């Protein structure tokens, strides 16, 4: 039976992305020109993203998906990330001479998965989406077949990932068992005293916690991030994380039971995650690992905002909206910044990613002023300094947390920002204040490649834009929450 056009329009982006993924694979034999493929893939992502304009508000496919500002936002987010990552990978693939078509196709399919996660209104659909992004991610992580590290990271990601997936799935089973449904709308008011529901939600939290890498499920992150090809790492740090958070937030915001059960978990895990991330990053020497830990820390900050949602929901004066807005804004700013940062790193890493030690960046300020300046800007944004995106991200989270009277959590977050500032500054210091010990590696690129430069420029502009005039984005994410909380 053919679904109505309305439903089709609601999932138009996914359809387009899938379509282009398939096309890429079909074209590959004929189209040997890498740039062309890159361009094609980017067009695909762009079209998919833009196609959201045809979307019709409301739920579709008998309530399996929900097309609201929330999902719209995340479609744009993952679309943007995919777009930038594809553009950034161009140089990388050339340098490491890897096949482009499959790579882009996988990115597209991963994006599809994330899109599904963003708009899923029903747990099993969400599960399929999750699997789609995960499986593509496993492959992407191991895409550099000749590299031991890459394959190892793929192996670890795959084993642990599916391990976590099993938990997630078992959680869905429990929820289904006690309520007879997996549709969030139905679950919204499920009786929150049933132990089995509690169990189910616990297991779901475990599964998703793994995906968003909150402590103590963060353990896989550094290894996988380090081993994976750097553009892929960029994707990991931005896309799947955001999508998983989207689902987490949707569940959390919709199901009352979740709100009540998860609050303290979020509170404690937030604190734990922040500390693990920042303290771990302090002692790292490989810059990819540093950023991996920092991404853990940022997940912790986002959890603070999630914890804030709980109280806020009960709050009258739009506290909840503040919390949601904080999460979304933070995810967006973090995604853009980290894509930018990883892109620079992937370019600087040199052939086979051999120059990724922090000390390899010594004297970068003189060797590559633009790259150094941009990277510093991104790091400062991570650090949360004014006129960068990260600053307002932090600010909104602070506001949300304090609005919900989570003063101590806010203070913990403040302490962590201080710890964080140490290792971010360390990198800047190395870039500007150290001279390169020994000779600069011969194959160290003299300047950023064109595509990289484009990506970085976009990221820089975005960082500054969000840092100087966040009002627009905030306007959007503030309006969206109404949809969410309307069951």
């Amino acid at each position, binding site marked *: 039976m053919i679904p109505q056009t309305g439903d089709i329009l609601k999932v138009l982006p996914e359809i387009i992305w899938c379509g282009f993924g398939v096309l890429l694979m079909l074209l590959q034999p004929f189209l040997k020109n890498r740039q062309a493929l890159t361009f094609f893939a980017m067009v695909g992502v762009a079209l998919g993203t833009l196609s959201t304009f045809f979307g019709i508000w409301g739920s579709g496919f008998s309530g399996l998906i929900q097309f609201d500002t929330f999902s719209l936002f995340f479609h744009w987010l993952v679309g943007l990330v995919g777009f930038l990552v594809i553009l950034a990978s161009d140089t990388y693939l050339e340098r490491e001479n890897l096949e482009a078509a499959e790579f882009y196709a996988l990115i597209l399919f991963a994006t599809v998965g994330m899109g599904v996660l963003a708009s899923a209104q029903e747990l099993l659909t969400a599960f399929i989406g999750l699997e789609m992004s995960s499986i593509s991610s496993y492959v992407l992580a191991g895409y550099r077949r000749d590299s031991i590290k890459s394959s190892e990271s793929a192996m670890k990601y795959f084993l642990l990932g599916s391990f976590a997936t099993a938990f997630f799935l078992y959680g869905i089973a429990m929820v289904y068992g006690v309520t007879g449904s997996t549709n969030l709308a139905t679950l919204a008011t499920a009786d929150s005293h049933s132990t089995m529901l509690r169990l189910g939600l616990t297991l779901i939290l475990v599964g998703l916690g793994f995906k968003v890498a909150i402590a103590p499920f963060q353990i896989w992150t550094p290894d996988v991030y380090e081993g994976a090809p750097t553009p892929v790492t960029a994707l990991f740090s931005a896309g799947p994380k955001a999508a998983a958070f989207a689902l987490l937030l949707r569940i959390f915001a919709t199901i009352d039971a979740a709100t009540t059960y998860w609050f303290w978990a979020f509170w404690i895990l937030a604190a734990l995650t922040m500390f693990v991330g920042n303290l771990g990053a302090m002692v790292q020497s490989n810059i990819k690992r540093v950023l991996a830990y920092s991404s853990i820390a940022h997940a912790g900050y986002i959890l603070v905002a999630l914890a804030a949602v709980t109280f806020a929901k009960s709050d009258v004066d739009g506290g909840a909206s503040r919390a949601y*807005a904080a999460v979304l804004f933070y995810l967006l700013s973090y995604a853009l910044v980290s894509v930018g940062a990883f892109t620079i790193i992937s370019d600087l890493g040199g052939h086979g990613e051999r120059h990724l030690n922090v000390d390899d960046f010594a004297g970068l300020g*003189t060797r590559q002023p633009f790259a150094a300046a941009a990277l510093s800007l991104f790091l*400062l944004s991570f650090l949360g*300094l*004014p*006129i960068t995106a990260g*600053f*307002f991200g*932090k*600010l909104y989270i*602070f*506001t949300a947390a*304090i*609005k919900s*009277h989570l*003063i101590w959590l*806010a*203070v913990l977050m*403040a*302490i962590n*920002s*201080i710890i964080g*500032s*140490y290792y971010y*500054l*360390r990198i800047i*210091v190395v870039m*500007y*204040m*150290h001279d390169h010990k020994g000779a600069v590696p011969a194959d160290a690129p003299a300047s950023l490649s064109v595509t990289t430069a484009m990506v970085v420029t976009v990221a820089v502009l975005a960082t500054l834009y969000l840092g100087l*005039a*966040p*009002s627009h984005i*905030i*306007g959007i994410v*503030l309006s969206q929450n109404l949809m969410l909380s309307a069951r």
Partner: protein
Amino acid sequence: MVASGHLLSVLIFFPAVGALALLLLRNDDERFVRQITFAISLVEFLFSLILLWLVPIGAAGYSLEEFKRWIVAPPINYHLGVDGISMFLVILTTFLMPISVLASWKGVHFRLKEFHVMLLLLEVGVIGVFLSLDLFLFFVFWEIMLIPMAFLIGIWGHDRRIYAAIKFVLYTMAGSILMLVGIVWLYNTTGTFDLPTIQHMLQSGLLVLPARTEMLLFLAFFVAFAIKVPLFPLHTWLPDAHVEAPTAGSIILAGVLLKMGTYGMIRFCLPLFPDASHKAAPYVGALAIVGIIYGALVALVQPNLKKLVAYSSVSHLGFVVLGIFAFQNIAMQGAVYQMLAHGISTGALFLLVGMLYDRRHTFEISEYGGLSTPMPRLAAFFLFISLASMGLPLLNGFVGEFLILLGTYQVNWKWVAWAATGVILSACYLLWAYQRVFFGAVTHEKNRELPDTSSREKWLLVAMAVVTLWMGVQSPFFTRRIAASSRKVVEQSNGYQMHEAAAPSAKPAPAATGIPAASVAKLSTERLAVR
């Protein structure tokens, strides 16, 4: 209170524009870069002098206000304004900037353009801090200022520059992040970041902070400022930062950045959290006094000339904090005045130390000795400035200390009895250092042939000396303009109820501060109080 023109915005962003222009410049012509920067900073200084005419004398409120919506949610506004206190701090900044450009005329060659860009950006941040009337804007500038300074220390500094730079940043961060929490908390309580509005709410009793909350908020702000000042136990970043920073950096650091701390106390801690301030005053005062004596004693035994001056700053700023937390008109005016005086005299001291360093590339006192013979002029200037710094009458140091001590004595003579010993000690360490550096026979052969001040240096020092003397003799020129604002601060810090009883006209009408009447109405309808 109507915004006349956009002078303040110009003041803030003119250096930024200059920095941009500098960046576009080609790098090879050093001299040109220096001249351009000097020209920019000089013009900026002249701009700032306009304030002297535009800011009415004897008006407590903010003038030349600029108000513009910046961010909708949360309602953050681009709200600038200047009063007697901030005006002079701005002028001090703009005055010290050309000085420090000239000061590094010969010293700095490495990545020259970036150096000057950093200086100008630093100026942007500092002036922004002094002119912001929006808590949030204030914080933004407060943080912006951090990076250029860190770079100045870290790139153009001396041996242990990186350690010093990181220490400086981390110390400041530690404070400022907590301050951010405080600011946000305050925002959640009041629904606005706008300083005048919050003050209005406190005055009209719309906003009543429970004691505990108020104290926590006070601490959140105070710690950030105390680190900047620096107050006694939080001061250890200062010596390192100073010793490692290049001359220009030290001048700005000592001359202006430290003042941001005390300025913050005056502008935020006292007016916003009067009761908490009063509760904390005994401890703060004690710390300030400890700082005065401790700083002086440690300075006494420093083998490193620059460190000595740095510790002397710790001691002098102790006086300022003491004056602020006396909640007394004379002392408050003295404190503000002392901020300016210290800015000039200590700035000049660092200038002189820098000149010695340019010649001998060491700060070790033991490396010098008998310098009066080869360089009498420098020696004379050094003595002059030292005397100013140790508070000799008719020079600027005295007026501030005198007012502070006199005023504080009116409310707490024990404090003064302790603090005044700092006057003795300052003479001890400065004169001893001076003797070891300049008196006696020349001990090191290297020193025998050192050149005396070049004409550039001479005129720099003349400028400093003239200002020093003029401030010392013509102090009313400053105090008259400071008086009204500082009195207002004292009034507010002594509680709003009595202030309400006083002339209601003193209150800034909310409409004038640019806050839509609606929001104020909303505020007045719901009595704000923290749960």
